[in-house]
């Protein structure tokens, strides 16, 4: 069963069998504008919940991506090296940024479910 959770920084994590797939939300890519570069993490990198792990650059700005939970990076989306614009085109499907093995699944409880996130993003406008 897949569990999807969202952060206040507009990352999503989709968890299946202890592995989370992380990217930015459709709302976030709309705010960023045209994405021109994604600085991916390295496989094997360990990260704590809320720490910066990747960078998404748009034409106008660079934005840190914070890891929604703690864990170890097990896979990165190499397609983003050649086609960073995938973040704009399919943010919540093909343009995931990295996958990590969760070290503390309990951290997911601090994140928002989809309804709560949509209300949050909607309020931010």
């Amino acid at each position, binding site marked *: 069963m897949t569990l999807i959770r969202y952060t206040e920084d507009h*990352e999503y994590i989709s968890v299946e069998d202890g592995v989370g797939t992380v990217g930015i939300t459709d709302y976030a890519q709309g705010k960023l504008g045209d994405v021109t570069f994604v*600085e991916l993490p390295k496989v094997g990198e360990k990260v704590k919940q809320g720490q910066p792990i990747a960078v998404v*650059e748009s*034409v106008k700005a*660079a934005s*840190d991506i914070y890891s929604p939970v703690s864990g170890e990076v097990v896979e990165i989306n190499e397609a983003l090296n050649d086609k960073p614009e995938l973040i704009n085109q399919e943010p919540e499907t093909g343009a995931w940024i990295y996958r990590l093995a969760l070290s503390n699944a309990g951290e997911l409880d601090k994140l928002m479910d989809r309804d709560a996130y949509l209300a949050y993003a909607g309020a931010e406008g």
Partner: protein
Amino acid sequence: MSAAPATTDHEAAPPLRQTPLAALHRELGAKLVPFAGYEMPVSYATGIVKEHTHVRERAGFFDVSHMGQARITGPDFETVAAAFERLVPGDIAGLKCGQIRYTQLLNDEGGIIDDLMATREADGTGLFLVVNASRKEVDFAHIAAHLPPTVTLAPLANRALVALQGPDAARVLARQMPEAAGLAFMTAAPLDWRGAAVFVSRSGYTGEDGFEISVPADAAEAFARSLLAHPEVEAIGLGARDTLRLEAGLPLYGQDMDETTSPIEAALDFSIGKRRRRDGGFIGAERVQRELADGPARVRVGLRLEGRSAARTHMKIASETGETLGEITSGAYTPTAAASVAFGYVPPRSSAPGTPVAVEIRGAFQPARVASLPFVPHRYVRKA
């Protein structure tokens, strides 16, 4: 996700001014941002990359009404030109009727107060100026304070300024004003548009062929709508204006130059003619002439980075051996160059195109090379 800290402080700022096209921008779905005290469109629905590409391939409409417009008039053109030549290093006396000159206002230390366009009006006695939005009050006060009693500066507050840029610009504008297509690059003429007195310049800030048109404020929206009605034309925001001018090698005041920068450092030597180099006679001439003779301490260059990551303002430029050379003043991954390109200042010994350097981005040095400007070739129409 969080964006890098904004460079402007929006708190306690005075209310934003609006251009005569504010309602139209809203109708077109513009994303509006504060810029130089105005609420301005940074992009429209399609986004910066598509807008940028549209200008390179078809024609883009820009609202640049936030920029300052003014006239300088006097008893005759010679008097006006001589008075203005005290303030700028450009050859103003040599302008033919309708000819435009790019030049800079300099301070006593040879630093750039602003860069501007000066046009000799077709009737031969006055100069028409276009200056940067962020500097217009400073410029106008400086100019007025230095003019002799017989020469007068009159800001033109009640006019909009729009730009039409791109390979289809001349074809489009000619459908409305056939005379416009007859203008050569860097010339201008007063024309009539449906009874409104407009001032059409064949110039721009994108590297493409195009026009800047000064329009009475009350005719601005009708004129803008008439341009946007042509299928070739899309509205373009300040975001794409910035990537276009970067590719075209054109510096932006306040970012690539300020009151500490000389025109020689900013690589604007081309805008200073032979007579003015030799004779001086303008505020700041001492430094300009010294740097022309001995070379400046630093010079603006183009940089092309190897990766896609963008070099942003204030990032450090280092030599291959790690010695600090200077810093980035503008940079972005731009659509037509399809590369991460930037301007920055380096010592002249490191300024030759091809020189390998490195730019510090988020703590890591990214390889780059000094590049010839422009990054994308200009397509100005020298002769109509």
